[in-house]
């Protein structure tokens, strides 16, 4: 069964360093999502792609976070520079069309620790 892949699974970095996360959605899924999940909270959407275009990045801290999905397939989320408050689980999800009724399929996540 096809799954969303993410790497790395764990990342420890020092503040002010740059980090990058990678996501490979389920083949054929047009919509890709990046979420941040702080301990004790639910996932919060950071950015949503429809194919290679950003359709929602209203919650993305654009002074330090960037995301791209150049060919409309896999995606990279970058943080530069990392801050202590960025420690969280970063989840990637994909769905077939991005409609509100679509099931979102989640990856295993990348747990980021900023020291």
């Amino acid at each position: 069964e096809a799954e969303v892949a993410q790497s790395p699974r764990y990342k420890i970095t020092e503040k002010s360093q740059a980090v990058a996360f990678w996501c490979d959605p389920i083949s054929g899924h047009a919509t890709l999502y990046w979420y941040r999940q702080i301990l004790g909270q639910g996932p919060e959407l950071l950015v949503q792609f429809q194919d290679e275009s950003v359709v929602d990045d209203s919650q993305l801290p654009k002074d330090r976070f960037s995301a791209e999905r150049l060919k409309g397939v896999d995606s990279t989320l970058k943080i530069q520079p990392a801050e202590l408050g960025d420690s969280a689980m970063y989840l990637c999800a994909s769905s077939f069309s991005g409609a509100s009724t679509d099931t979102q399929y989640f990856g295993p996540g990348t747990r980021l620790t900023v020291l």
Partner: protein
Amino acid sequence: AQRVTQPEKLLSVFKGAPVELKCNYSYSGSPELFWYVQYSRQRLQLLLRHISRESIKGFTADLNKGETSFHLKKPFAQEEDSAMYYCAVGGYNKLIFGAGTRLAVHP
């Protein structure tokens, strides 16, 4: 403001007892409602959605538009139901999640 509230962080029951995980939402318009579940060491996955009106693993959820609630219920809890449960509201092509409720089913 669009918001999903799950008032209980932890719900602890014994096997065979009924379970109700509460979810209240605040949303303008007509949202889609979902329950997602995360079992230990597994990824977050869809449990059920309102639009399908289905029962999955014995769980059901009823949408009460007057109370803006979408509580998840199961008449007889099983140990394998122990997991983290998230209520989510979908609209404008995005999901808003609640903070989650951990269900612990004891033997």
